[in-house]
Every structure is written in C-alpha cells, then in structure tokens.
C-alpha cells in the first residue's frame, strides 16, 4: 500500500485553483452515463448527492434513518466558521488556515486546511442563497460570534440550531434533485459491505432495514459520508444510530484507516447522571463566550455555588490561559476540567463536573440578552437536569464528541481504494489531532458542495471502468457473505444483550483510551477487547429474524464492528509516543501538565492497513510537512 497524498505543487494560495484547472472534466453529455453512490445524507452526504445530481450524474443516496433530514449533522448547535472578515477584526483566509493547523496540533495537511479556509467563504453564500436563516444584525447584515480556539468573530449561526438549518438547506436541495429524478433515495437502508473489482470500488451491499432484503448496488464511484465513530465509547454526544460500519467494512476491503485514536472530547456537556444513561448531551461551545468556568478552590467543598464567595472560587481557565481564557480550545479546556476534578475539586454527584456560570453575564447584559443568545440551550439544560441555569450555574463535564480519525484520503478525497471517496467526518483530513469549534459543519459542506464534485470528475474521466452488473461473481460473493454474517448473529442465541457488550466496551475505551491514556492502560485494553469480542460472538443474544424490522440485529452488526475498531484505536494510541490534540499520553506532558508533542518522530499521519482478523494491522506513515505554519509548541496563555 502506498500513500500518495497528491498535494499539488506551487504556492499554498494557488494549489486548489491550479489543481482544479489541471483535473480532467467529464463532458456534460457524458455525465448521465455515470452512476455515483453516496452513503450517508448528513451535511457531507446530502450536499454531495445534491451537487453531483445538479451536475448531471445519476446518484443513488443511502441513509439508515427514515429520512435524510434526520442525519446527525442536524444536532450541531453553535455555528459554522468562514473567513469573511465581516467584523473587521483582522480575520482572513490565512488566519483561519493558521488557527486550524495550530488548533489541530500540527497533525493536519497544510494544503487541505488552506483549501478548507478558502472554500469557507463560498459556503456561507451558498447557504444564504438556499434560505438558511442565519442570525442577522439590525441593519440586515449577517451576525457573527466567536468560538473556542479563535480570537476573531468568524462564526455564523442560526440560534443554537445551526447544524439543523444547514442540513435542512442541503436536504431541501437533495429533495429537489430527488423530485427531478437525478437522485434515487434509499432511506432505512444500511450499507453492509463494499464491492471491489479489479482494485476499484464498484458497488455496495445493503440491507433494507424494513424487509431485511440484502441487495447489491453497482456504481462507477462510491462516496462515503457516514460520519464519525464516537459511539465506540457507548456514551457520547452522537446520535444513537451513528456507527462505524460503512467505513469499517471498507477498511476491511482495503481502505487505510488513519489516526483512529484522535477523539475530540467536548468540554461543555451535561454530566452523566446514572447507569441507565443512553447518551450525553452537548451544550454549545458558544456558551463559553459569556459563561465563566470555575470550581471551588478547596477540594471537597460541597456548599451550594451561590454560597461560595468570589475569593474561594478558581476560574481555572482564565487563570491558566489568560489570553484565551474561557475560549481556550476544546482539548485544552477538557483536560483542564479533568485536572481539577482529579484534584477532588469537581462539583455535583460523583465530583465529575465544573460550573459554567452566567451570573456575571446576566448582571452585565441582563437576563433578556442572555435569553436571546442562548435561550433554547438553557431550556434544554433545564429539561434534562431539572435545574434553572438562570439562577444556578450549569454543571458541565467533558464528553466524547467528534472523531478526527477516519478513512485515509488523498487531496482528492479518495481513499486507498480507487473509486472510493470519503467525505466529512468519515475521513481523517483537515482537523489534525483536534478540531476547533464550528469547523465540522464547514468541512462537511466544503467536501460535499465544492471539493468532491470537482475531484470525482477527475477520477471518472481518467479511470477506464469495465462494465459490471450485480450478477458479477464478486457482487454475488460479497452479497452472500453479508447474508451469512447477518444470520450468524441470530444463530448464536446466547444470554447477553447487545447493549451490555457495547456498554462494557465503552467503559474500557473511556477508561483506557479516553481523555488521557498511558501505555499500561492501553496494553490492558488490548488484552480485554479481544476477550470481549470473543465473548460477544459466543454469548450474544439477538432475538427475532433477519426478514423484518429488527433493531437488535442492526445494533449487533454495529457493535461487532466497534469491537474491532476499539482495538485499532488502542493500538494507534499506544504507538503514538507523544501527546497531541485529543490524544494525551500521560507519559508525554510538560511540567505544568500541557501536552508535549514529538515532531521529530511523529509528525505523520498513521494509516493502518487491515491484514486479516486476529492479525496485527500494518502501519503506513504519511509524513506531514509544515512549510507555512512553523511547528511550535501550542500556547494559549
């Protein structure tokens, strides 16, 4: 396996333009001869499917939900970044590029990040044209706010429902193309496998989740926009259905999996309240614009927050990072919260929480302004916790949120399997080891609207594709394997539920490969996960049949994949002997507890090749070069 990043030559600012010109085009009259499969219908998938159809390709789009409008992008709250410099505060494409490379702890490709910053400007225009109701100033111009990791206001938002509005924009564009006949939509359909013929991705195998029918779909190119795999931790901010299956099965067919251990822990989530809990709810990072984070100075101080005088509070982010303060990036803010809780100064049940306090902001701006800015978030908090954040500070704690790892892709967003493209959170690109707030929406839409529709034509125009159909022996083989695997779950007839395995895996992952990792813990996880996997395949209980709507069966397939992925994540975390972004190895920290990178040995993307079940995967390295942003210790002090 060879990793060819395909980064264009020439100055950073001109790479994308030059590349766009050099790529081959498909004649408009020939586009309708090509079929492209898009799996996933979130920001990346829906925007790609709609844009490809507008260009004239035949598109088949798949999602496991009952409607593409329910993709998990809908839950993103805070905003989307764009280097518009509408605030005249010194923003520029270069500054967004710089902040993103630095924020990602120098583990992203410069060329990709620069392109993302360039395209960010166009995304806002596109979404406004679609009718996305971004917040406006009284004069009718677009409003902005600031987000963690940035000192400029470059985040565009639609109340606390930005992801929802952007997704609905893309979804409406998709529905427009479905009505026109350019896209065939397959809701409640799950991708089970990838079909590779003569070294190229030529189709997928799916299961109709209502009838159980296993079907083959042939195409000239495949696009995976299936999101992240944070649910490997069981508890996360992801929707319950989010899973790794599509990209994991593609990995097993030859697509390299890059930087699997990079998991973003989001600092502002509602703390866990009990064993039964099914997921964690995120409170938008925008709250840190006005909320101040603190814990009592004394460990074990159990007084109510309003009875702890100012002098006995530790505003630890403002103390440790005076220039960024409460807006420190997510990885830094999360670890700082963990540190104060480890010292016994955490608040709330179990001591796993810190205060996010709006009292000062309410005094300064009035409750009405705060209600206007964050009303729906406050309401959501109150509903879940039964506490009123206008009177009592919120309690927050870090939680698993976003996975920066994913399938390795080149500059054209193509994986190591020719014809298999991967976009949005499902690929590894652009965010490095940590993602800045309001950048996920930006990447999903950049990939789907503007990058992929250009690069995929280059593939289609250059590849010589033999004609294949679903009767091809390879299609029949993979379809048969998928059916056998599905039935196998039902035949085990064991005693333990699928969820009990998922929870146990999640606990191992959080304890050993979560906010902080060390070699001993990771080695222990690498012993325990294969044993758990073995127990799963021996004792899991999946009721019902494969010819009906069977939610336990769906979950079994996904948890089986998480049990394999978890091991790869720990392996990746163990080999990376440094701390960077969301990957904090306890052995590698500075004296004051900050992450210590090792650029000499680890300035590379770790791309893992699957070599067979129960065999160690093979590591390939893509060296990262930093020509424009000089490698330096990150500082937010």
């Amino acid at each position, binding site marked *: 396996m060879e990793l060819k990043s395909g980064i264009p030559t020439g100055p950073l600012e001109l790479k994308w333009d030059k590349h766009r010109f050099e790529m081959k085009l498909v004649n408009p009259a020939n586009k309708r001869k090509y079929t492209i499969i898009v799996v996933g219908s979130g920001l990346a998938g829906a925007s790609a499917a709609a844009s490809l159809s507008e260009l004239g390709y035949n598109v088949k789009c798949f999602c496991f939900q009952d409607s593409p409008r329910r993709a998990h992008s809908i839950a993103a709250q805070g905003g989307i970044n764009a280097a518009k410099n509408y605030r005249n505060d010194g923003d520029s494409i270069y500054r967004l590029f710089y902040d993103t490379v630095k924020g990602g702890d120098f583990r992203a490709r410069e060329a990709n990040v620069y392109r993302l910053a360039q395209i960010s400007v166009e995304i806002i225009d*596109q979404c406004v044209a679609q009718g996305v109701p971004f917040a406006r100033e009284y004069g009718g111009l677009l409003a902005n706010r600031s987000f963690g990791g940035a000192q400029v206001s470059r985040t565009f938002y639609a109340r606390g429902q930005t992801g929802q509005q952007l997704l609905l924009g893309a979804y409406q564009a998709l529905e*427009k193309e479905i009505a026109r006949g350019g896209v065939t939509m397959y809701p409640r359909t799950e991708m089970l496998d990838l079909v590779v013929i003569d070294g190229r991705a030529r189709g997928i195998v799916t299961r109709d989740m209502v009838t159980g029918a296993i079907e083959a779909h042939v195409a000239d190119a495949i696009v995976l926009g299936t999101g992240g795999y944070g649910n490997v931790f069981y508890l996360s901010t992801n929707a319950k259905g989010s899973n790794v299956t599509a990209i994991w099965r593609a990995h097993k067919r030859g697509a390299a999996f890059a930087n699997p251990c990079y998991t973003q822990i989001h600092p502002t989530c509602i703390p866990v309240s009990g064993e039964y809990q099914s997921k964690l709810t995120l409170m938008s990072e925008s709250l840190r614009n006005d909320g101040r984070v603190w814990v009592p100075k004394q460990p074990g101080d159990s007084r109510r927050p309003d009875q702890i005088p100012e002098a006995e509070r530790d505003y630890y982010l403002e103390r440790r990072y005076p220039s960024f303060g409460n807006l420190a990036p997510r990885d830094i803010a999360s670890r700082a919260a963990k540190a104060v809780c480890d010292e016994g100064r955490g608040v709330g049940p179990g001591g796993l929480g810190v205060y996010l306090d709006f009292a000062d902001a309410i005094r300064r701006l009035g409750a009405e302004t705060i209600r206007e800015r964050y009303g729906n978030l406050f309401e959501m908090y109150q509903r879940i916790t039964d506490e009123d954040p206008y009177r009592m500070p919120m309690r927050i704690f870090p939680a698993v949120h976003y996975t920066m790892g994913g399938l390795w892709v080149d500059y054209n967003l193509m994986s190591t399997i020719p014809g298999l493209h991967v976009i949005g959170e499902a690929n590894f690109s652009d965010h490095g080891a940590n993602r800045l707030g309001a950048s996920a929406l930006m990447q999903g839409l950049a990939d789907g609207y503007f990058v992929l529709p250009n690069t995929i034509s280059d593939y289609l125009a250059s590849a010589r594709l033999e004609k294949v159909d679903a009767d091809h022996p390879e299609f029949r083989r993979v379809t048969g394997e998928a059916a056998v695997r599905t039935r196998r779950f039902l035949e085990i007839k064991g005693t333990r539920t699928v969820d009990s395995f998922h929870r146990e895996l999640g606990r191992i992952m959080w304890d050993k490969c979560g906010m902080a990792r060390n070699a001993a813990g990771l080695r222990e996880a690498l012993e325990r996960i294969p044993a758990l996997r073995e127990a799963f395949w021996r004792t899991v209980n999946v009721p019902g049949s494969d010819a009906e709507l069977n939610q336990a069966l769906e979950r079994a397939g996904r948890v089986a994949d998480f049990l394999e992925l978890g091991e790869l994540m720990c392996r990746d975390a163990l080999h990376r002997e440094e701390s960077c972004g969301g990957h904090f190895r306890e052995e590698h920290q500075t004296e004051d507890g900050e992450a210590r990178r090792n650029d000499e040995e680890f300035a590379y993307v770790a791309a893992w090749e699957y070599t067979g079940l129960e065999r160690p995967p093979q590591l390939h390295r893509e060296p990262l070069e930093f020509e424009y942003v000089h490698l330096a210790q990150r500082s937010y002090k």
Partner: protein
Amino acid sequence: MNLVLHVWRQPGPAAKGSLVRYDVQDVSPDMSFLEMLDVLNERLMQRGEAPIAFDHDCREGICGACSLMINGVAHGPNRGTATCQLHLRSFRDGDHINVEPWRARAFPVIRDLVVNRSALDRVIAAGGYISAPTGCAPDGNAILIPKDVVDTAMDAAQCIGCGACVAACPNGSASLFTGAKIAHLGLLPQGQPERLDRARRMVRQMDIEGFGHCTLYGECQEACPKEISIDTITRMNRDFLRASLVAGRGATARSD
C-alpha cells in the same frame, strides 16, 4: 418508581395490533422516557421476549425521529417537548401510561411504534426548497434581511419534521408542517421567485399523500415540540389562494 405501560404491539404492517401490558419496576425519575423503554427492552430480551420497536436517534429533541403517542398526546404531556426530552419526573409513581404510534392515513405502521413518514419528504420534494444550485450564489451580505424578518423565518424553520402535528390533528392534516416550510422560505427575499409555485405544489402534494384538510382545530400547535405557530398555516393558505388567482402567469411555467 414503578409504572404500568400499555404498549401498542404490531409485528408488521399487515398484522393486527393490540395494546400489551408491561409492569416496569424500579426506574429512576431522572430517566428520559426513551431510556425507560431501553431498560424495558433489555429486560424483555433477557426474558426471551421481542423488544418493542420505536424510532429515535439524536435524543436531544432535534432530529425528529422519536414519535410516541403517550396517553393520547403526541410527545406526551409536556409543552414544547419531544419524547426524547420527556423525563419520568413528569409522571407519578404507579401511573398507567398508554404508548401508541402516530396514527394517520398517510403514516402507515411498519412495526410496533414505528411508522412510515416518507410522505413528509415528498411534500418537501414538491417545492419546499429554493432552487439555488451549488456554486452560483452572491455574497451572503448582498442580500439584506431585517432582523425581525429573519427571526420570524427562523421560528418557522425550526420544524423538526416529526409529524406530531399530523398525529395530533383529528383530520390527519400536515398543514402545520407544510405551512412552516412555506412560511420559512416565503418570508425571505431569496424565497420570493418560487413562492406561489411552491405553495401550490406543496399543498397539492399533501392531498396526493392522503393528509386530511385543515379545519383549524389547533391541536397541531399544541402538540408541536418546537411550538410552531398556527399562523404559518394562514400564510400557506394566503399564498395558495394567491397562487390560484395568478395561475397561468409564470406560476405554472414549470411542469407539475
């Protein structure tokens, strides 16, 4: 706390359904309603019984997947709350609770509490968009929109497409859903060129899908987890009426 559930069980679209009693013991008032169903399902599977199928995903009240009729009320007793954000503290120890799927002609039952809501997607496909192909947009600030206008558009735009309005309506009408989209796009300057055509096509599609007519019961507004106002239906009716009056002048230029 302990609860007694009476849950609609129906193995398949063509099968006969019925309410089945489940005694759910020892659950916490801090659980969400769906977490309580998770716990019940775990217990059912441990006893070798088939778990209850229900739709859900984000569990943050935004994806619109969850869809339960709880004691005859869409999304249960709390105002402006989707089922996934409903907590057991809203019930009393020992309560009997009926749990049923959305019921409407346009929403056929797939299994247990899961219904098919694809009709709503087809209503959007009929015209619930602004035709702005990728890559030809003017600068975002070239379109000025007064703050109160964009705020009102956003009030309508936050519809989560759950279908509670349809389930709550005695006529099974989707007017609040459709009205919300027509109001969202129709309030914005970008939405003007296709405004009347949009109203005509979306309203017609509702009929094709088998949704009932709006006779202003107002139940939709009460059930809506996003508290979308029934005023959006008035906007829809006005646009639809105007579309009928100007038919033939541009509005029908596109094929139906």
